[in-house]
């Protein structure tokens, strides 16, 4: 079991890999990838019962990146965890690459569901959790949704259904960084009170700091101990976390850094010596 210090250093490695990947691809989504580094680290390096050597193991825990545009953080986590060689990260979004712009379960070892069209991942995750119930399996299903993503109607169809079928084997985390492409959630389309919305849909809701491992693991534990309903962990995060000029900037939702910007970002993240 890794301690929090080790996990923090893994989260830093993911951030460094994200910046390097995006600099090479000159395309992709840094903001919402950087905001989810602690969450992905917590899941892939401590929480989930998985085997990188056997990505299709049927009793494994599953993870669905419903906010599929954050593919870089998923790829960085999968590579760091040993699902495929880290050199593959250099091919992100390039022709013939197994690392598509949005996650492709057929092409990338460790990707449990093809996602990218917002909202659909939560629906698929609830189907996976339902399968676990039918088969009386112990595996858990995790999903990460964006905050802007909950503006999609299918999210609420899935939310209703997951509560109706008492999918307590489903834990969903919301990367609540407050920003979406066109600006702040509250200006584009207000989602608040988002905790009350999920509560009223029959979910157990926990609010945490999404960059604090102690709070993340306490919430994941609470979710496991919650019976009869799915859990939504609303994780407050900072979009672009760790890179000063990207933090809290909607403009860094889907824009790759120039080589100068990447250099500065890597200096801030302590990743220059590896270059």
């Amino acid at each position, binding site marked *: 079991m890794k301690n929090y210090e080790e996990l923090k250093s893994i989260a830093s490695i993911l951030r460094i890999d994200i910046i390097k990947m995006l600099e090479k691809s000159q395309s992709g989504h840094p903001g919402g990838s950087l905001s989810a580094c602690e969450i992905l680290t917590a899941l892939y390096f401590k929480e989930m019962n998985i085997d990188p050597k056997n990505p299709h193991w049927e009793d494994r825990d599953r993870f669905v990146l419903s906010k599929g545009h954050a593919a870089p953080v998923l790829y960085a986590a999968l590579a760091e965890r040993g699902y495929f060689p880290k050199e593959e990260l250099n091919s992100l979004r390039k022709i013939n690459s197994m690392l598509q712009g949005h996650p492709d379960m057929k092409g990338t070892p460790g990707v449990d569901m093809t996602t990218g069209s917002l909202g659909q991942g939560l629906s698929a995750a609830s189907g996976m959790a339902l*399968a676990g119930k039918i088969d009386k399996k112990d595996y858990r299903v995790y999903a990460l949704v964006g905050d802007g993503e909950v503006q999609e109607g299918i999210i609420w169809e899935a939310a209703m259904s997951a509560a109706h079928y008492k999918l307590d084997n489903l834990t969903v985390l919301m990367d609540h960084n407050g920003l979406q492409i066109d600006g702040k959630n509250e200006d584009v389309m207000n989602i608040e009170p988002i905790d009350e919305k999920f509560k009223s849909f029959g979910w157990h809701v926990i609010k945490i700091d999404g960059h604090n491992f102690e709070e993340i693991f306490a919430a994941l534990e609470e979710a496991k101990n919650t019976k009869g309903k799915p859990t939504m962990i609303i994780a407050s995060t900072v979009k672009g976390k760790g890179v000063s000029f990207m933090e809290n900037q909607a403009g860094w939702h889907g824009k790759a850094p120039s080589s100068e910007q990447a250099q500065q970002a890597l200096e801030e993240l302590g990743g220059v010596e590896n270059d």
Partner: protein
Amino acid sequence: MTNSMATREAYGEALKKLGSINKDVVVLDADLSGSTKTAVFKSEYPDRFFNVGIAEQNLMGTAAGLATAGKIPFASTFAVFATGRAFEIIRNSICYPKLNVKVAATHAGLTVGEDGATHQSIEDISLMRSLPNMVVLNPADGVEAEKCIMKAAEYKGPVYIRLGRSKVPTIFDENYNFEIGKGVLLKDGSDATIIATGIMVSKALEASKMLEKEGKSIRVINMSTIKPIDSDIIIKAAKETKKIITVEEHSIIGGLGSAVAEVLSENYPVPLKRIGINDTFGESGTADDVLEKYGLTVENIIKTTKDFI
């Protein structure tokens, strides 16, 4: 099998059989289980039936998730909602990852009747045919519908099965062997070929028999697999009969007529007539009245064929 039966009724019976043969089969519906006949499965296997409520997007997304864990989900609602409302979920969460989901949609075409244009799916074949990895089946009668369902369950990957509300005459017997991707020669002929699909097959057959009495020799092919289309049987018919007529309870844009036109124009161009819905919405009325008004009748097939040859 009775001498007439709606293909949706055959679907319900097929699901009942499948449920005992294959424990991985699960069935999902969106509050229409009485109409789609998935309620037949529900009453036999309540633990493997899931109603998602009036939520077609989540119907398809949940089916996709179930398929990732080895289930064989049959997801049912009316064709207009399955392929229209939930199109992009079928595209991105089912077809792109080639998940083993069967979209069995009922109440396709104009024969929904009284409910009118909002519920009459006339573009579902076109939509489903355009998706990579999707197999598209449109059975002609109850016997073929049941066999389509059984074969769809054996096939690994997404399948769209188009089913109807109204009773249709049974034309196949129980020994009929349905194969995905194979057109079926129902009647030989040399003056022209009618290629029909779904509920229009029995009408095409009847038209050809009437034309026979007038000395016209018309070949009839049942094209129950729209995709992958059986190019060989189409090209052979073009070579041997020189003229082709397609008949479908669907828009002439994007359906069987288009699929046949694509095969002919690239391989062996011959004159083609498409009988179908002519780029218009339907309207309320009994199934028979609507079919008559929109030209999907034995009489119109006869007239069109005679004018053509």
